[in-house]
């Protein structure tokens, strides 16, 4: 039936069809039929490629919002402050040393010729004392950046928090120390621990 209808339409010439379209302002559903008719007239077939493209586009359209939903739908968890032992557990966990010092010293020694390693801030269990104070200061030469980065990542994994750090060579540190640089002064005056100290500080 549908085919017959199409054939009938094909017999009409292009102009009359167009006029009709403009006049009637056909509803959308019929629009697709019209397009097919025009194509047949011009002896054009919708190529399989374009068909595939359309299909793909449809799939993507369909998939898009679902994917976006998936990422936002993945459940996000947060600590429940109403938990029975919440505060007791918090105190217990936060009292634990963030990282083992001995293990850290060994790892720090592997990343280069480290002359001085100071921990402060998060390692002293005093968080956000001063935004200026780094959690980790490393002074040394020939520091392997790649090794340092992997060390930092594992350390952050162990501590459970991002670590603010500073790395400088011996010359820079001595210069900063001599000119009473605020960055160094605040660190050395606050609570800190020297893991490695080959500078006789």
């Amino acid at each position, binding site marked *: 039936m549908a085919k017959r209808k199409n054939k009938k339409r094909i017999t009409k010439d292009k102009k009359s069809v167009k006029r009709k379209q403009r006049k009637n302002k056909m509803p959308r559903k019929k629009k697709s039929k019209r397009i097919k008719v025009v194509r047949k007239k011009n002896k054009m077939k919708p190529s399989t490629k374009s068909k595939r493209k359309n299909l793909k586009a449809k799939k993507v359209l369909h998939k898009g919002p679902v994917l976006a939903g998936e990422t936002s739908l993945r459940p996000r968890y*947060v600590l429940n402050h109403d938990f029975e032992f919440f505060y007791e557990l918090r105190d217990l966990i*936060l009292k634990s040393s963030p990282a083992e010092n001995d293990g850290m010293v060994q790892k720090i020694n592997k990343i280069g010729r480290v002359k001085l390693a100071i921990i402060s801030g*998060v390692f002293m269990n005093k968080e956000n004392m001063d935004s200026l104070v780094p959690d980790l200061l490393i002074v040394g030469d020939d520091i392997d950046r790649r090794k340092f980065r992997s060390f930092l990542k594992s350390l952050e994994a162990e501590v459970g928090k991002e670590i603010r750090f500073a790395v400088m060579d011996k010359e820079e540190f001595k210069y900063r120390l001599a000119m009473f640089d605020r960055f160094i002064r605040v660190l050395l005056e606050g609570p800190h621990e020297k893991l490695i100290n080959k500078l006789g500080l």
Partner: protein
Amino acid sequence: MSKNSLELIFESKARLKILKFLFRNIESDFDAREMADRIQEDPRFVKGEIKKFVGIGLLKVKK
């Protein structure tokens, strides 16, 4: 006090890591994959632990 006493009490280093991570980022919320990535542990293990914590009410799903 031996250094890994807490690890022993909590049965595993990974579980302690999760707790440390949670309590040091007390106000933030995470999904399981993110957490596993940050503490560098097996995502499947982390998921399992999260399930347990949700079960006992220590964690809740953020809406």
